[in-house]
């Protein structure tokens, strides 16, 4: 179960916003895509999912288990989304349907990919809610997103993304919109689920300090290009690109500030 992205190019109105990005996610690897906003990391993720917004076109190659999924018919791709590749978004406030209960949204992912009746799907949804450590799962599945806290919403979003047990999880800045106090809990949860399911992970962030807790490999992006990539330790100890050095400076600065505040 591996993902190989080769020479990915995403163009919007003739502008190359992702320009020849290549990286690989071997089975069980945890790869971080890191870069400042506008570096093309989110678009890379959406291109992998085949969910680019209108007007954006992708070329190059995205291979999942050796199959080319870039340009695959949408119907076929829909069978892979959620079932084999799951995705968690940055903003939990908007990533959940405001007029559907949490349980129904978790059950939806299950019912897309498996033939289960409504009641069985609900039972499964409760189990999934418990797995992401939502409090009182029996009752929280009947709640609406606006009745949950930010951290709970992101846990629910994770439950939705993982309900069909994908082999690869793409997490697009999953902790950025959360309070600092809650970030650590959600990160720990994400890591423990990735490990227990033996999933691969693509983790997108702009914060090297967060990435250091999660990833084994990192790909540094700037202006749609890969500027540096390799094992995380190498990047942290001997960054060659000035952009990585800048990210490292930012990260240590936040760490220092964090210690001062504490």
């Amino acid at each position, binding site marked *: 179960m591996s993902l190989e992205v080769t020479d990915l190019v995403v163009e919007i109105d003739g502008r190359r916003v992702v320009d020849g990005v290549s990286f690989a996610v071997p089975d069980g690897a945890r790869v971080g895509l890191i870069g400042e906003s506008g570096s093309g990391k989110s678009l890379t993720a959406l291109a992998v999912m085949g969910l680019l917004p*209108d007007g954006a076109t992708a070329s190059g190659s995205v291979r999942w288990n050796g199959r080319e999924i870039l340009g695959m018919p949408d119907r076929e791709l829909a069978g892979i989304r*959620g079932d084999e590749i799951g995705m968690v*978004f940055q903003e939990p406030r*908007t*990533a959940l349907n405001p007029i*559907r209960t949490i349980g129904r949204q978790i059950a939806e992912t299950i019912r*897309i990919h498996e033939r289960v009746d409504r009641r069985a799907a609900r039972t499964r949804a409760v189990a999934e809610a418990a797995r992401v450590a939502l409090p009182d799962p029996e009752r929280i599945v009947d709640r609406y997103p606006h009745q949950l806290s930010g951290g709970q919403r992101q846990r629910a979003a994770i439950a939705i993304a993982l309900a069909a047990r994908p082999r690869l999880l793409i997490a697009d800045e999953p902790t950025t919109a959360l309070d600092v106090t809650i970030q650590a809990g959600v990160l720990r949860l994400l890591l423990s689920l990735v490990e227990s399911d033996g999933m691969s992970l693509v983790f997108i962030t702009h914060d090297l300090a967060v990435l250091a807790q999660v990833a084994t490999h990192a790909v540094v992006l700037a202006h749609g290009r890969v500027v540096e990539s390799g094992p995380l330790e190498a990047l942290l100890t001997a960054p060659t690109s000035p952009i990585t050095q800048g990210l490292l400076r930012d990260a240590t600065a936040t760490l220092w500030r964090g210690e001062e505040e504490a």
Partner: protein
Amino acid sequence: MTALRRLCSSAAGLFGLIVVVLILVTALVSLFWTPFDPRATDVTSRWLPPGWPHLLGTDLTGRDILSLLMAGARTTVLVSAGAGLVATLIGIALGALGALTARWVRETIAVFVDILIAFPVLIIAMLISTVQGGSLWVVVWAVGIGFGVNVARVTRPELRRVQHSDFVVAGRASGLTPAQNLVQHLLPNVAPVFIVQLSWAMATAVLAEAGLSYLGFGASVVDPSWGILLADLQRYIQVHPLSVVWPGLTITVTVLAFNLLGDALRDATDPTLRTGKRSARQGRRGPAPLPEVTA
């Protein structure tokens, strides 16, 4: 189930629901039974005041006004349900085509909708009736098309707004096909706006039927219709003012009930409004959004 309970918990919603159900029941009952035959004339009992056995009195030809109103409910139900259905189909189809397709298609649809909106329902009714002749179906189609494009114009920008929400992309990321996504995530989220428009269209259908029948494009003189009855009685308003009150009141209450029911339904289907906490979706309660200028 809970939505129904929420609907009944508001006085306006309960009133709307009761009136609409009452009209439905009356229309059904009138198929089998009315106090008098609504077409039977009786010269000896013309212009009777309300009393027994003619509870609401009689008209110029001695027909029982209550029986005429009951029989007219059939026409009203037929027209408002038919027009509502046509408006729903046209509204969703044009709204979805205008919001979710390739750019040149949606721009074309938007222009098409704007052109159609310029046509008053009356003109559409006249166009159809030249082909088909006057009948209730003319009213159904004319009001359905006329309000369908209105529904489409309000639904389209709402769909465009919701379409770019993260949860719609998230739904696709969970493996929903575009069609499933439309049914699961997009349409339910535009429902509040849609319901209000639709209830308004159905209420207007009641008025339009009265108006178009009055002008001769709708129900024929022998069909029972509130509009025709009102037109008939209104000519004698200075002599027998009370008799005009009944069809007038019936039409007013029906239109009011449709509107109240629509508003209450909108509130009942929107979970964020239930707890009184509506910061996240406050825009929903505002006036209908203006059509977008750019795609």
